[in-house]
């Protein structure tokens, strides 16, 4: 079967599954949109609807403190018919978002940047999954499906992150900058992906044109481009809402964590327990912690920038203030790009079981806490710790495997020997 036929079949099946879920269980989107694991205060579809209502009634969408998402989503969604009565258009949009994401993922696979970069070529580079298989693992990942059905706006962020990666791995500067600026505009933290993806883009461009342009000029132009694009988006938002107050309602909320609704991350519990006088300090520490992975990984794994970007999405899924399973879905769909690292990963079974266990125990413990009243917040928090542990094991293990892979190329005589930590 030709690759196009396979792709059509895969995309058709994935769209069918989503639309079937939407139509066969009309109450499912609302149910999932109310789950804390899926919808966070900054991505919830219900809050988007609230913002939309205010926006269409000429009230500032940020009045009332419910809506914390980007202003440009409002004109987009106000074009669609009201999802409470005619949900089909919205459902179709979210299905399309997933399919576009999968398409971007296929482009990343086809670029081959996950195994062979300008400076590095893995010794196991033939061990790869086809783009169809990787796209299938994204489209049929239950976390992706649930995110899509819950119509969480992090699906859009995921799409733009994947697009930015795809375009960077093709060396298409303009679209890369554009996609990344939208992703950063929507959820702020993707801005941290800029340095590794810039390196990726630079490497690809140098390989393609066979001439090494000045890295400084390249960085300068791209940074300026990013600043311009984000500035443009922000100005457009200010123009649209009539004031700059959206900054504090969107990025302010993401930075300062005023809404302590439980989620699968690690922040909310800490900050509910914390005395207010320590709040600013720990906000600083927590953000510093998230951001500090970027320079470290980018420098150490300079030769594999795509791997750095993928690993950073895993870091985001664990350490950002409002993570949801959508972030984990993004990371877990990027992991299959690095099929060649699997033989060197040591804890795959452990990590997979941990994530699976947390997936089932999380809702059970949340039920015990909120509905049955027989448990308490510690139950759910314990499970979010396990969930984060599972993800961080995958992150840590894959970094180990990537380093080991580099070592195998640099020192072929050490292949197959046990390594010791010094």
């Amino acid at each position, binding site marked *: 079967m030709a690759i196009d036929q396979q792709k059509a079949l895969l995309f058709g099946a994935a769209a069918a599954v989503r639309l079937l879920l939407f139509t066969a269980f009309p109450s499912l989107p609302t149910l999932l949109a109310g789950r804390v694991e899926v919808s966070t205060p900054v991505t919830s579809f219900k809050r988007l609807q609230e913002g939309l209502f205010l926006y269409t009634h000429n009230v500032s969408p940020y009045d009332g403190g419910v809506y914390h998402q980007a202003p440009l989503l409002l004109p987009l969604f106000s074009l669609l018919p009201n999802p409470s009565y005619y949900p089909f258009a919205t459902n179709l949009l979210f299905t399309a978002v997933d399919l576009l994401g999968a398409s971007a993922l296929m482009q990343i696979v086809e670029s081959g940047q996950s195994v062979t970069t300008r400076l590095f070529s893995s010794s196991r580079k033939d061990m790869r999954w086809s783009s169809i298989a990787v796209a299938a693992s994204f489209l049929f990942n239950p976390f992706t499906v649930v995110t899509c059905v819950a119509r969480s706006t992090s699906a859009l962020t995921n799409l733009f992150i994947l697009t930015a990666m795809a375009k960077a791995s093709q060396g298409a500067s303009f679209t890369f900058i554009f996609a990344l600026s939208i992703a950063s505009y929507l959820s702020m933290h993707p801005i941290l992906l800029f340095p590794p993806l810039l390196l990726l883009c630079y490497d690809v461009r140098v390989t393609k044109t066979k001439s090494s342009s000045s890295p400084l000029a390249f960085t300068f132009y791209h940074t300026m481009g990013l600043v311009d694009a984000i500035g443009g988006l922000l100005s457009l938002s200010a123009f649209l809402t009539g004031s700059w107050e959206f900054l504090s309602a969107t990025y302010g909320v993401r930075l300062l964590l005023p809404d302590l609704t439980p989620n699968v991350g690690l922040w909310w519990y800490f900050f509910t327990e914390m005395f207010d006088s320590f709040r600013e300090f720990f906000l600083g520490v927590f953000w510093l912690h998230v951001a500090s992975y970027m320079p470290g990984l980018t420098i150490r794994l300079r030769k594999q920038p795509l791997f750095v970007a993928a690993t950073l999405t895993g870091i985001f899924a664990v350490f950002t203030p409002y993570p949801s399973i959508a972030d984990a879905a993004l990371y877990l769909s990027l992991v299959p790009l690095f099929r060649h690292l699997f*033989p060197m990963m040591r804890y795959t*079974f452990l990590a997979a*079981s941990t994530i*699976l*266990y947390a997936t*089932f*125990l999380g809702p*059970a*413990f949340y*039920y*015990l806490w909120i*509905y*049955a*009243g*027989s*448990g308490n917040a510690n139950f759910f928090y314990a499970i979010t710790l396990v969930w984060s542990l599972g993800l961080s094991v995958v992150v840590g293990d894959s970094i180990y495997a990537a380093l080991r892979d580099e070592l195998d190329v640099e020192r072929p005589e050490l292949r*197959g*020997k*046990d390594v*010791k*930590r010094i």
Partner: protein
Amino acid sequence: MALLNSVLALRKDPRILKLPPYLSLLCILGGIAWLLVLPLQEYSRGTYVSENALLPGQVHTYFTGSEHNIFRAYRQEVHGLADKSIEERTRRLGDVFRSQNLKVATQRYKYHASGRNISNQNVYAILQGPRADATEAVVLIGAWRNMDNEINTSGVALVLTLARYFKRWSLWSKDIIFLVSGDSTSGPQAWVDAYHDSHSSDAVEPLSIKSGALQGAIAVDYPAGPWGHRYDKLHIVYDGVNGQLPNLDLFNTAVSIANGQMGIGCTLQRMWKHDDKYQDRLQTVVRGMMSQGLGHATGPHSSFIPYHVDAITLQTVGDGWHDEMSLGRTVESLFRSLNNLLEHLHQSFFFYLLMQANRFVSIGTYLPSAMVIAVNFSITAIALWVASGRSATIPNPASTDHKDKNAAVTVVEKDGAKAIIPTAALEITERSLFLPLGFVLSSHFIGLLPLYIFNNTSQSYLNLAFNATTAITTILPLATAFALSSVKQPTEQETTLVQCFSLLLLGMFLSALATLNFSLSFLIGIAASPLSFTRAIHAPPASSPTSPPPSFLKKNRTAISVAQATLIAALNPLVLMKIAALVWKVDITDILVKAAEGWHVWGLWTQVVVWLAWWPAWFCGAVVVGSGLFS
């Protein structure tokens, strides 16, 4: 670090793979033994009231004397309504409440399940507490018909009498709602759903008047006719839907008042005779676990518990010398205690096993037994995962035995020293995950089919559907295994991985379930435990002079596989259900009708667990054994 390395090195030791079956067996036996020691004096605890606001039995009760005459009059009234229509009954009961100056409302409900219509009416009245601000309420329930479908004449009469009596007191600091529900299960469910605005509007009428947050509910079940009946004991029923339990403080308060203040003996779980011996305690625990595991509604109180409203039913049993007034005084005292509450019952345990009216074990003590049983599946799953990544037996080149001589070897050199290692030991086996994962996931999806069938078949076909499903599910695994072997013979690794994933999922489901419904998890764990020990025994590869002689297992492959298949067929969830129904002499149709009612009305999810967790695990296990048979 050195220690860690040596532990990691152990992973390669073939002996380590021999251990897990014993470990699994140990877990199962440990889990059962753990449960068996619980009734001992040393492992259980005496009950105590934690919430000091309750002060059980500290008040004098005044429900005596002339109230008895009023009770008798109401009982005659209620008896007179026995053969009246539902509308007439509701109207007359409403009139009685209205004559007591209470606010009255009615509610119709109409459910469909198994092709039956369950339609009836609830009538309720609200007493506004003189010191209350309508933010909290307690409920007194008298279902028109009790669980045995007898008319609850004296129970309803007692509710009416107590309504009149309570109205005179000025000390209530919570509203009191008197509810006469049409039946004992769906009626209270309809009412409590509508009270919390979570009813489906096409089946249930909304409530026209409401009060505050419900703090507790007491149901009275006293089906004595117009001439009364003196009872011996109070049977306290406390199981909620899906095995959720009310706060132990409520139960303790009821026991303490009935026993200590009124001198009425209390019993539970239909243990009419309880000598406080080990056997009796164990029997009570096991009955409690069966009831909790099934998750069905056991009385009018059951529907309240999922809404986090602690509730119990007081049922009169036996022939003795206690009369309706002592029951009335018990309820009065109980309401006085609930009236004292400053906050929702939260102090005491929500997870417990009772073995007598005043002895219990709490979750910390009993949970490990279900957990270790669930862990046994995870251990086997891990062992199978490791086994699936191992290539065929590693030959020993140094052996003097003839058969290992031709094994391929590799020379490795380290620090100038050379060693000859069998090549097989160096190879990393790649696992082919696609078929096993797909198979396990799709077998979990197949479970949706019987789930749908049993919940939506009409009553008259349920028995047929059950027998047909039993027959089909018994044959299906063998047919699947045969079909698989004729289409594409699954490799040994693939069958191992199928079993690995299915047991991993089962272990995960059961450990998650153990936190929600301990008993169900324990019972399914026990019933599924043989799945940890059955294996697909594949035919040995075509023998060549170098291959080792077939082991005992391989020699008697067919016989052992057939024995395993028979054992597994007997463990079919449906077969076990049939056996259980025969042992307890219950009609299987009744169980299925109740289950369907539970699914549509009460929000019961026991069948989800059975069909989407237990049955698929059984199915995968059976297919794995079958594939050994057909290899």
